[in-house]
């Protein structure tokens, strides 16, 4: 009893204290993010969490995606010219861009071609002094094949730079808008090299972006403030904090309690219950993604396309969309989402029919079923809010046609590692497009090259399909590319190395005081131009 009294007293005291701080809180936007970034250098990572915390807040690129679309617009480059053979890109750079002034660095000059040169050479040249400062490696740059694609980078003048490619490649410009192409300060690197402190270049970042880093406590928070000399003008929002909260229910609880203003990756159940709370507002946007069950075609019985068809027939996508996505997704039949221009509407999906599935199985010689394993990840992704739950539903569907399913759950990193090495039997995977080009789905996920790097998790290498997507990549006209991709989707359906399951709608839950916030179809969270309305939703505590 005494115990309770003390709690109540302390709570009351602090509750009074709580009211006072509203004015401090008015100037801070808190984003409950899903994890700690690996680093503050987007060149070193492939994770969206890292990009949210680095490239999207701290840095700019030569060109960037227009917010809310996959169109390219000028950023640090004012304009560019492409040579007739498609191999030479010349960029004119802005002259009025200032880097962040931090405790470690005071810039003496504005952004120029040296910074561009530094940012790319660091990733590209293995003997660059900064190439080996981090143990993480330049995975995105390498997996995009940029090393082989770029032939030379040449500084023409202080604000003019030329990229020369080894071949014509239409998605190159879109690649430069991607996170790994963020521009770092060459002057900062030089200073650090003089002070023998090169190792802090990736943990104490200096960029040109709308926000600059104030403080980072791993697994706790990242604190940013508006870049006072931002080239597009200082942000209205003065303080931005990423509250690192890996547990989705905790994120939701914090949003409901008013501790967060924006919540990353809400669960479907949160979206349905958000309306009860006045501090929560759901915003949605069709996502550029797919969730699928990938069958490892190098392992029996998935080397038999009849078995793969049978499994396609056996899985009830509708019930998955109801239970896992709580109706916030659409059924998938192709490997790319319907909001992409190359989508083939005419393809007919396998209907849900356990009888047909059983028939196909006995045709394939598995009348008595077989044992299989589904690998899943414990982490929640934008395309799949609960892979474990999805696996359990599939387990039940397949039990009906006599297939016995074991589920193995791994942490995200361990899961990817296993899948890349092809150790899985089947796996629940997904993909979010990062540049809006169909090639961004087909090449990594289904090409023969993808079987080498492991991003093609079915290890399905079909010469005809591979030829089609290769042709589509070197074309520049959208119409002929569309035809090639639609043809490829038919080949894909015939072979069915996957069970395409769903295209998730992207959701975020925000506090109504957050204004001008939009979801980007390519994923990720951008706080540029977002601001807080100082009407007090919080005061009713």
């Amino acid at each position: 009893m005494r115990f309770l009294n003390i709690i109540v007293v302390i709570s009351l005291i602090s509750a009074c204290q709580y009211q006072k701080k509203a004015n401090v809180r008015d100037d801070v936007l808190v984003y409950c993010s899903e994890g700690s970034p690996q680093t503050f250098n987007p060149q070193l990572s492939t994770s969206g969490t890292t990009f949210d915390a680095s490239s999207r807040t701290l840095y700019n690129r030569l060109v960037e995606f227009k917010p809310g679309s996959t169109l390219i617009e000028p950023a640090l480059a004012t304009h560019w010219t492409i040579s007739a053979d498609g191999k030479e890109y010349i960029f004119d750079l802005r002259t009025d861009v200032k880097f962040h002034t931090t405790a470690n660095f005071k810039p003496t000059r504005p952004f120029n071609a040296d910074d561009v040169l530094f940012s790319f050479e660091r990733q590209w040249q293995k003997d660059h002094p900064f190439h080996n400062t981090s143990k993480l490696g330049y995975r995105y740059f390498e997996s995009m094949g940029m090393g082989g694609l770029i032939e030379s980078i040449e500084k023409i003048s202080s604000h003019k730079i030329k990229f020369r490619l080894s071949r014509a490649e239409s998605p190159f410009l879109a690649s430069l808008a991607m996170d790994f192409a963020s521009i770092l300060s060459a002057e900062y690197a030089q200073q650090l090299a003089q002070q023998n402190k090169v190792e802090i270049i990736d943990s104490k970042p200096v960029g040109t972006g709308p926000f600059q880093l104030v403080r980072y406590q791993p697994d706790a928070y990242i604190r940013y403030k508006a870049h006072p000399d931002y080239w597009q003008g200082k942000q209205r929002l003065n303080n931005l904090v990423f509250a690192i909260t890996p547990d989705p229910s905790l994120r939701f609880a914090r949003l409901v309690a008013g501790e967060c203003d924006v919540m990353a990756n809400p669960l479907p159940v949160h979206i349905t219950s958000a309306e009860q709370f006045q501090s929560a507002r759901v915003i949605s946007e069709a996502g550029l993604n797919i969730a699928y069950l990938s069958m490892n075609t190098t392992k029996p019985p998935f080397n038999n396309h009849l078995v793969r068809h049978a499994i396609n027939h056996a899985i009830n996508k509708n019930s998955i969309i109801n239970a896992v996505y709580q109706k916030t997704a659409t059924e998938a039949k192709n490997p790319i989402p319907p909001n992409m221009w190359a989508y083939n509407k005419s393809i007919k999906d396998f209907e849900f029919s356990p009888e047909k599935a059983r028939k196909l199985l006995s045709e394939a010689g598995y009348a008595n079923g077989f044992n299989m394993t589904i690998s899943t990840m414990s982490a929640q992704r934008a395309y799949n809010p609960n892979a474990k739950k999805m696996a359990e539903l599939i387990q039940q569907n397949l039990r009906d046609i006599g297939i016995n399913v074991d589920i193995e759950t791994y942490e995200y990193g361990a899961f990817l590692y296993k899948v890349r090495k092809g150790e899985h039997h089947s796996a629940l995977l997904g993909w979010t497009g990062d540049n809006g080009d169909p090639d961004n789905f087909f090449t990594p996920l289904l090409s023969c090259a993808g079987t080498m790097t492991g991003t093609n998790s079915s290890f399905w290498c079909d010469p005809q399909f591979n030829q089609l997507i290769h042709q589509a990549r070197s074309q520049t006209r959208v119409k002929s590319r569309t035809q090639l991709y639609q043809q490829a989707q038919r080949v894909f359906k015939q072979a069915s190395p996957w069970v395409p399951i769903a295209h998730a709608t992207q959701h975020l839950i925000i506090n109504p005081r957050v204004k001008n916030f939009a979801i980007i179809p390519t994923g990720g969270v951008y706080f540029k131009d977002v601001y807080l309305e100082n009407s007090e939703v919080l005061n009713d505590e």
Partner: protein
Amino acid sequence: MNNIPQFYQQRRIPSSAARWWKNFTDNKLATSALLLLSLIILIAIFSPFIAPYDPTLQSADYLLPPSWYEDGTSAHIFGTDALGRDLFSRLAHGAGLSLKLATFVVAIAASVGIFLGSLTALSNQFVDQITIRIMDLVLALPSLLLAVVIVAIIGPGLPNAIYAVAIVLIPHFVLVTRSAIKNEVNKEYVTAMILDGSGKIRLFCKSIFPNILPPLIVQLTLAFSTAILEIAALGFLGLGAQAPHPEWGTILSESHNNIVNAPWTVTLPGLAIFFTLLSINLVGDGLRDAMDLGN
């Protein structure tokens, strides 16, 4: 000497087991805890018959509230979880699973621990000291951390979690057995038996073992509740039983996501764990008092 008339009452001395039982049943709290525990054990044993549904059977009625809520139905007394599985069936099967696992864990830990403990107590000073140092060290390691590390190495999953928890529990048994035996060995009746020429094994089985039984019984109940708690904790952290096993900790961690909109999916499994642990601890406490140990 018997010339005194026996019209006075004589004091009867009951057997020690009968005395423990009487002491135990005198303690009303412990007795009711024993009843509750028996009920839980019965539910656990008969869960396949009691549970109205298959614990992994999914239905379209997900997150149905319990029957005493306004929109609950009597078809699912405790409601359903996020996959539409009947919560009561899952908890009942979970009782079976938890108790079975805990029994298994305690059986491993106790047999290894008692064996090692006896060996240590009866061996020479050097071996004894070394064992004690090692056991003290293992005890100093935070138990869950140790279990987590073991699970991390051999991989998550139910069997591995069980081994981890069993390993963590062994030192307690070693120490209790050892100190109880050491205590007994120094007593004079044992010296007397040795002087009488009893063999080591006979001495151990006939006279020492029965006397170290009380502390061991208490340690068993303690270990049992620890085992249930640690298995549930590992399940909660996603390192123990994996879905769709109806293990209590796993159920809790799955329902954690629904804490805001379906609080019963959190409160009910928690209550199940809590009452099981409480009844075991009460019974253990009652036993300790009845056998006059500890305090």
